[in-house]
């Protein structure tokens, strides 16, 4: 299977949309316009997009506290997301979830998650649903290097293996769980952990969209064909702090700047498709302009959007009358 021109344009647009979305959230948060906590995905775009391009509405993903990119990659509406992050009534979750709980089950996005390691068991459930109802769907759990040390994650590897579930576990290793380096916090290696559960693991450079896309294709096909779960260990970098407001003093001198200059996912993608004559610079420049306008529009509308009211406080707790 090859990426068509339309696939490439779509992939670039999604990655650019995530970058613009996160840069805008960064600016608005810095200006004091966004309440609560936000954790930004900028720098990691090739992972979410390279993986979710293989998924459709039958398929489910569970995300992390750093969930905006996964949402966009899986097809959540960016306008509804921006409203949600601003805490507005027309947000994807009515303003009740916020950045850490953005979800849209109708597109198979089972939620960002405020609990590190909360997602993998849920993905076993989505995979069990797909297997039981024979939908052909697969389920993908995104976890960070931090969640890769949680027991829920290990237990989910085991359950997915012994039940032969159509699941993929993606360890997005950005090098830091909060301020703690994964070279220190992760005993052994992700690949050896996968091997311990009898799962294949592919290590992939998460700045390289094409490498992610290819590795994800294999893992997702394997799951879809009933051949069981596997792991992708994706190494990448985040451009902002663990949360907005994090001074990032724990990273090395010039670390982020070096990555931006040498390995930026959007830059690598552009260089690759231009060198191989797959797309023109003009195609992507046009996307850049369109996406920038779209995000400005989302922010402007979200800022002006209505807040939920007291009448909304007690709704949506239960399905039936309580």
């Amino acid at each position, binding site marked *: 299977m090859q990426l068509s021109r339309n696939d490439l344009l779509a992939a670039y647009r999604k990655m650019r949309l995530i970058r613009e979305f996160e840069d805008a959230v960064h600016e608005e948060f810095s200006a004091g316009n966004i309440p609560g906590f936000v954790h930004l995905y900028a720098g990691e775009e090739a992972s979410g997009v390279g993986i979710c391009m293989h998924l459709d509405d039958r398929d*489910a993903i569970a995300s992390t506290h750093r969930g905006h990119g996964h949402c966009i990659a899986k097809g959540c509406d960016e306008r509804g997301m921006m409203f949600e992050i601003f805490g507005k009534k027309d947000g994807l979750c009515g303003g009740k979830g916020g950045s850490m709980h953005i979800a849209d089950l109708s597109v198979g996005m089972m939620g960002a998650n405020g609990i590190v390691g909360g997602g993998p068991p849920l993905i076993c459930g989505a995979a069990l649903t797909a297997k039981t109802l024979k939908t052909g769907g697969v389920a993908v759990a995104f976890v960070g290097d931090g969640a890769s040390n949680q027991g829920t994650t290990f237990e989910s590897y085991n359950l997915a293996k012994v039940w032969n579930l159509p699941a993929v576990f993606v360890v997005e290793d950005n090098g830091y769980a909060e301020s703690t380096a994964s070279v220190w916090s992760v005993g052994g290696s992700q690949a050896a952990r996968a091997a311990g559960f009898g799962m294949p693991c592919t290590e992939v450079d998460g700045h390289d969209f094409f490498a992610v896309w290819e590795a994800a294709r294999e893992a997702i096909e394997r799951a879809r064909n009933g051949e069981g779960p596997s792991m992708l260990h994706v190494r990448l970098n985040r451009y902002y702090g663990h949360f907005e407001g994090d001074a990032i003093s724990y990273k090395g001198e010039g670390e982020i700047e070096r990555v931006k200059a040498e390995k930026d996912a959007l830059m690598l993608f552009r260089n690759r498709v231009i060198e191989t004559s797959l797309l023109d610079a003009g195609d992507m420049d046009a996307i850049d302009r369109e996406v920038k306008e779209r995000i400005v529009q989302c922010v402007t509308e979200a800022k002006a959007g209505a807040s939920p009211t007291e009448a909304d406080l007690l709704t949506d707790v239960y399905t039936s009358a309580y």
Partner: protein
Amino acid sequence: MPKKSYRQAINEAIRQEMARDERVIIMGEDISGGMGAPGEQDAWGGPMGVTKGIMPDFSRDRVLDTPITESAFIGCAAGAAATGLRPVAELMFVDFMGVCFDQIFNQAAKFKYMFGGKAVTPLTIRTMYGAGFRAASQHSQCLYPLFTHIPGLKVALPSNPYEAKGLLTQAIRDDDPVIVFEHKAMYDDEGEVPDEAYTIPFGEANVTREGDDVTIVAFGRMVNFANEAADNLEKAGISCTVVDPRTTSPLDRDTILETTEETGRLVVVDEAHPRCNMASDIVGLVSQEMFGALKAAPQMVTAPHCPVPFSPALEDIYVPGVARIEAAVRQAMGKGH
């Protein structure tokens, strides 16, 4: 009407719902038993044999033995519920909630609210609770107040076989996450249970005795003790109303308030530890809503504030019993009783 045990009533409810709806699956540790082993299949049917015989009739595709991995399979059940199945997961002893509580209270309970009302999570968790089995501190607790505290969860405590079948059937058909507490000392209790499927609505208390002097509100197994106490007291000239709320969440406040207003005296019987339990919850409710109608201070009959002891000599003192309920009623009645 045919007589069936609490165990049979639960088994029947599960079977009937599995037959009615192919989305209903069950999972848990040894819920069938013998998975992957060379010997007998369906060896256990759960540790108390409650689900025995279901696997041969419905296959291992819908009766899923799990590894000992509560975090993964309770979370899996939550995720499966949010994506189209109606799982009934067995958390063998409620004491084991410590290793999977996140998946219940931070995930399943909150999906609907956090996701702006768009999630439906028809998850049922069956779990065993209660003392009296010489099972000691980590296999005997009554942790329903902890679940009752969490918005988004519903909590049912069936007090006899009829209640068990009706409440469990309702739980499986309910679109919200429900925890059904089965008292481990009641599985052999027998009672009249219709063969056909039926539901008991949540939040509608059952008044098992009607009297003029004292209202006793009791939960789960304690309902039976309260009935026995009421029958004994009747002979002594004290007439009691006994209320079985059936569910602690939702709670039938109206029946509790109305029956307490009629008698003016309240005794609450709760096998849970005394702090922040259902007894304190209901005494708080009644005190706030109808303080002026009370003729005496409300009485709480609960387990003490200590872990459940192992020694039979100690456990027998620990569990609230009929004599303590009668004493509390006499206390509420005042001098001369």
